[in-house]
């Protein structure tokens, strides 16, 4: 832009420019005032926005919190078990969004039993839609191996999609930091929080497995897949972290699949010879009770797994599963 | 070039110059405001030497043997707060010219149970250090070759070096810790000292019959007599009984006589009686104090004698020996 000056110095032009200059000065001052930071930066760890997982449990009904169903076919056994507790309708309401957290830790075939059984996951998702009238079913896990290949090779990806569920693979933006109140380890730690936003119900599905570090990997250990960051660090204190995970996640119910249990070489297994057929599925609103019973399938007692006692002390459930008067059901094969 | 310049220009120029001067002045005055502690280069660079934990007086950490490390930060106590550290005993130190106490614990790298604490008392002078050392000497002491005045008792080591009185007290009687304590003690004893002040009076005590390590310095009122201050004593054993010999240097012969007379009178007042001496030289100087012998003599500027001896012969022998030695040494000193 050019401005032509002349002897009759245009007063208005000057005033206009002075006004603009004044506006700039006030703008600069106002911006400085608004952005002024008298304290300076604080150390990184102190300013994370923390999130907390909501409680997804449904009201308890006496005598209908745990079912131990036996049968060779997972689908039928699960149906039987969930029906003994009041049917899926008791847990999933019309229009709910349900998050299923299966164990998809490894990129191993379903046959090896290192991951949740795809047909079982699909059946749970199907029931949520067909009888629970769920609006949406999401399946997620922060796998140890590459998540995409884990979902593909474990067969859970395909099976769940066929049942109408969405697979949500973890990505950095889905993680947020949390601190478990009363926790020692889960302090300002990133968890896979994104999928839990706008979710009404949470279901955990996992097989019974031997676990080298902790003794056994079952429903409580399944939540390990929600941890982000360099979570291997927690292997230094595995019992406490499993107990804290159980305290952190309050699921609607958990499905512990003991149709085939991994007796040795857990948690990855690697051979069908590691597996033993025990034909049991536990559906429970109390994950500690489910795992306490699950321990017996591995020829262990609840006292062999210190995390069970820790979780009970932390209020996550009871190790005395018999006190829940579990429903015992059987499906003929 | 322009021929001249306007008045406005001059005014603006002067204003600008004033602004520059103001800026300069502002900077100048700003530089006086600072937090000296934060900028203390000694704090920052003192540790570039291999022994980073520098104390202004003695770097105790540098004296630790391999395998041991400091367990606590050093603690300093002055005259005002000495009682905090050694509650009951503070007065003894305060009366003996105490300046400062430096404490530090050290511990074995391998076993947390193996720790010991160093008490380094700056007593201001070797004399004062010796005074607190000698008055606290333990009965079960074992002489050490560490310094002239050093001994070991149970799991602790006590000694003086220059103006310091040092105690190192171990928490455990294990040999490993014991060795470490001795090493630290040796290292402290080896430290170069600025002021080497020895204690002159000790050379006046004859060596024959002297019980090693029995020297004592009474800074005030020796043997309960107020006038007898700054007095050394030593124990002798010639026969069956032990004899305490004493010696105090005064400023002049006159003062020595005065104090000796006063002390003599003090003894009489308290129930002592003049008794006959076996050795004629001591006639009139020997007192019987409820069956014990007291001898009070003067030689040159020195008051000397024997205190609380239950064997008169030994007592007189020691007194004669002491007087002879004092005369001899004083003569040698004068000759120099």
């Amino acid at each position, binding site marked *: 832009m050019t401005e032509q000056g002349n002897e009759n110095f245009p007063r208005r032009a000057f005033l206009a420019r002075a006004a603009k200059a004044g506006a700039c000065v006030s703008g600069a001052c106002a911006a400085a005032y608004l*952005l002024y*930071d008298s304290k300076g930066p604080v150390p990184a760890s102190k300013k994370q926005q923390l999130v907390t997982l909501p409680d997804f449990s449904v009201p308890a009904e006496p005598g209908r919190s745990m079912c131990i169903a036996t049968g060779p076919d997972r689908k039928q056994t699960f149906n039987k078990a969930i029906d003994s507790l009041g049917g899926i309708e008791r847990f999933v309401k019309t229009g709910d969004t349900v998050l299923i957290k299966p164990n998809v830790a490894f990129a191993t075939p379903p046959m090896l039993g290192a991951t949740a059984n795809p047909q079982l996951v699909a059946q749970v998702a199907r029931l949520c839609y067909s009888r629970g009238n769920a609006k949406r079913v999401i399946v997620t896990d922060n796998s140890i191996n590459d998540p995409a290949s884990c979902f593909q090779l474990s067969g859970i990806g395909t099976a769940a999609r066929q049942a109408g569920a969405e697979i949500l693979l973890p990505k950095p933006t889905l993680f947020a930091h949390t601190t478990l109140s009363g926790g020692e380890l889960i302090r300002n730690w990133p968890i896979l929080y994104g999928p839990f936003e706008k979710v009404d119900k949470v279901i955990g599905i996992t097989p019974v497995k031997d676990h080298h570090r902790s003794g056994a990997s079952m429903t409580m250990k399944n939540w390990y897949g929600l941890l982000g960051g360099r979570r291997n660090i927690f292997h230094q204190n595995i019992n406490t972290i499993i107990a804290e995970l159980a305290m952190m996640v309050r699921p609607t119910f958990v499905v512990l699949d003991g149709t085939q249990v991994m007796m040795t070489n857990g948690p990855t297994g690697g051979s069908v010879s590691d597996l033993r057929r025990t034909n049991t599925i536990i559906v429970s609103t109390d994950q500690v009770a489910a795992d306490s019973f699950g321990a017996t399938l591995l020829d262990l007692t609840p006292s062999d797994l210190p995390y069970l006692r820790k979780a009970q002390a932390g209020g996550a459930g009871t190790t005395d599963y018999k006190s829940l008067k579990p429903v015992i059901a059987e499906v003929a094969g | 070039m322009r021929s001249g310049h306007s008045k406005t220009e001059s005014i603006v120029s002067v204003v600008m110059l004033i602004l520059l001067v103001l800026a300069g002045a502002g900077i100048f005055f700003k530089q006086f405001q600072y937090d000296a502690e934060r900028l203390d280069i000694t704090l920052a660079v003192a540790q570039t030497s291999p022994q980073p934990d520098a104390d202004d007086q003695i770097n105790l950490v540098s004296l630790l043997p391999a395998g041991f490390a400091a367990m606590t930060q050093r603690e300093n106590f002055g005259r005002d707060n000495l009682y905090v550290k050694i509650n009951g005993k503070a007065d003894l130190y305060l009366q003996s010219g105490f300046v400062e106490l430096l404490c530090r614990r050290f511990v074995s790298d391998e076993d947390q149970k193996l720790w010991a604490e160093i008490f380094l008392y700056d007593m201001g002078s070797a004399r004062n250090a010796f005074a607190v050392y000698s008055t606290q000497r333990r009965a079960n002491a074992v002489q050490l070759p560490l310094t002239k005045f050093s001994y070991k008792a149970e799991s602790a080591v006590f000694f003086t070096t220059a103006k310091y009185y040092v105690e190192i007290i171990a928490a455990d009687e294990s040999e490993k810790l014991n060795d470490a304590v001795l090493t630290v003690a040796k290292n402290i004893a080896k430290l170069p000292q600025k002021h080497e002040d020895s204690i002159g009076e000790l050379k006046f005590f004859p060596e024959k019959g002297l019980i090693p390590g029995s020297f004592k310095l009474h800074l005030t009122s020796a043997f309960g007599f107020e006038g007898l201050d700054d007095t050394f004593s030593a124990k002798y054993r010639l026969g069956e009984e032990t004899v305490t010999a004493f010696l105090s240097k005064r400023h002049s012969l006159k003062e020595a006589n005065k104090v000796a007379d006063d002390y003599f009178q003090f003894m009489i007042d308290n129930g002592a009686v003049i008794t006959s001496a076996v050795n004629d030289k001591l006639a009139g100087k020997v007192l019987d104090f409820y069956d014990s012998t007291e001898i009070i003599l003067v030689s040159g500027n020195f008051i000397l004698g024997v205190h609380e001896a239950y064997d008169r012969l030994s007592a007189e022998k020691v007194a004669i020996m002491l007087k002879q030695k004092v005369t001899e040494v004083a003569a040698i000193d004068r000759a120099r």
Partner: protein
Amino acid sequence: MKIVTVRRLSQVFFFTVFIWFCIVTTQGTRWWQLRGWPVNLFLRLDPLVAIGTILSTHRLYAPLLWALVTVVLTILFGRFFCGWVCPFGALHQFVGFLGNRKKPLAKRLQLNKYRKAQCIKYFVLIFFLASAAVPMLGWAWLQTGLLDPIPLVTRSINLTLLPIVDSLTGTISATPRYYQGACLVLGLFFAALFLNLLIPRFYCRFICPLGALLAILSRFAIWRIGKNTSECSNCKLCEKACEGACEPASQIKISECVLCLNCLDSCKDNVISYQPMPSLAGEVTNPDISRRGFILSLTSGVFAVPAVRLAGKLADNWPHKLIRPPGALSEAEFLKRCLKCGQCIRICPTNVLQPAGIEFGMEALWTPVLNNRIGTSGCQLNCTACSYVCPTAAIRPITLSEKLGLGEFAEAGPIRIGTAFVDRSRCLPWAMDKPCIVCQENCPLSPKAIYTEEVFNTVRDGSLAVKKISALKIETVEKIMQPGKFATGDYYCAAGESKRAKITSNTENSIELAPNAALEKTLGIGDKIEVQVRLQRPHVDIEKCIGCGVCQHECPVSGKRAIRVSADGETRNPERKILLDT
């Protein structure tokens, strides 16, 4: 008094003050040391620093409020900072004057003509500011310091010119200072200076992003240079020494004018003045920023960040040798603030703080990093100097209590800048069975973070047979020992599992033992003995180590050190911790 004289005085004044501030940037309270000298004054007055950090952090760090003074004055009066205050500008002006004063008038007029390429500096500015403001994934960095004249000249003087001068005189620093990659800093500095011989104030006219920013700010300046009458002889003398190449003789480019006022001084007819009205010859007020150039520089600025971040240096591929000084913010936040001014590097009393090269990521160039191979020692336990000179709190000011985790910081513990690791394949007692506890001895912590494990190992060819024993002397059948070799106090003679005595001296076939009742009595002629070395093998207590690097600095394996600090476990990036909090 002539205003150009005052302008020159002002330039000399500010340049001198600036150099003085560089000189006093050294730890201490003597009048020529840091004291209370406001060494950050120029960086604080620099609006590019303030605006850059505002864009990257969305906050205005309190001390940078000083920039508002420059901003307001520039809006009202134009680019006075370039012509009157900027020390780099003064230097350019001086070199340009020296280089061009003998050239004929026509040549000088030619040199001071406005060039289209002067718009480049705006694109430099837009590029830097765009990359500082990249909103994606919280990615942003501050790279203005590369070319912003104040950080540039601060860095150049502090890290290259002063150490060079001081190495000849030795007045400021007792030992010579070393700065890795300093020649690149110096190269940029001299390149900028020598370009003045080509065209005066080359850097200011074509490159300077700060000048560009001030040019934009001066768009509505109330007073500006211009002709006060149309009766001009068009002698063009006003452009002979025009510093900004803004062409006051014709239509003046307001945004290019640096207020050197040489035109005012050289006009014979008093046609030119500093006035509130537009020049009667007409003026160009808008900076020459083409739409195409704007979009190009903006997009390249935006894309530069993710492009450089492709290297993953802020993700899993983080450079473990990048040890930042205590108080440094987390790496992402640090890069949003660091100006690369080099003051922290300069003030570091041990010279361990160094300008980073591009091995830590392009964006980390010239930012402070500890190099424990350089300097007189590692990071000193009781020193927080670097945190206090940082103008933007990229290294936030920390107290000694916070650094050491004392008092109210006891729960948080000391600030760890890394963790030392023993390289057992290089460590003398670990790999070569040679006694050495240098790292343990030098660990400044209390209790020490390095502890040792005692081991007795039989030396090579150390298995011998007894030929004769007399008192403490043992003669051996073999004649293979190097005389005196085992007399250092580290060697022992062992017979059986637990019996061992220290060797005090040896010849080729005999050893003499320190008094130890047990050993020589149990030995008989023909018995086997072993010469053993007593080793104290160092271990790092990972819970105590703060990564100061003193051990690495002192390690006698002077090439690749046998104990090395890596940034693992540093406090500032909690995701890099090794251990669980307990």
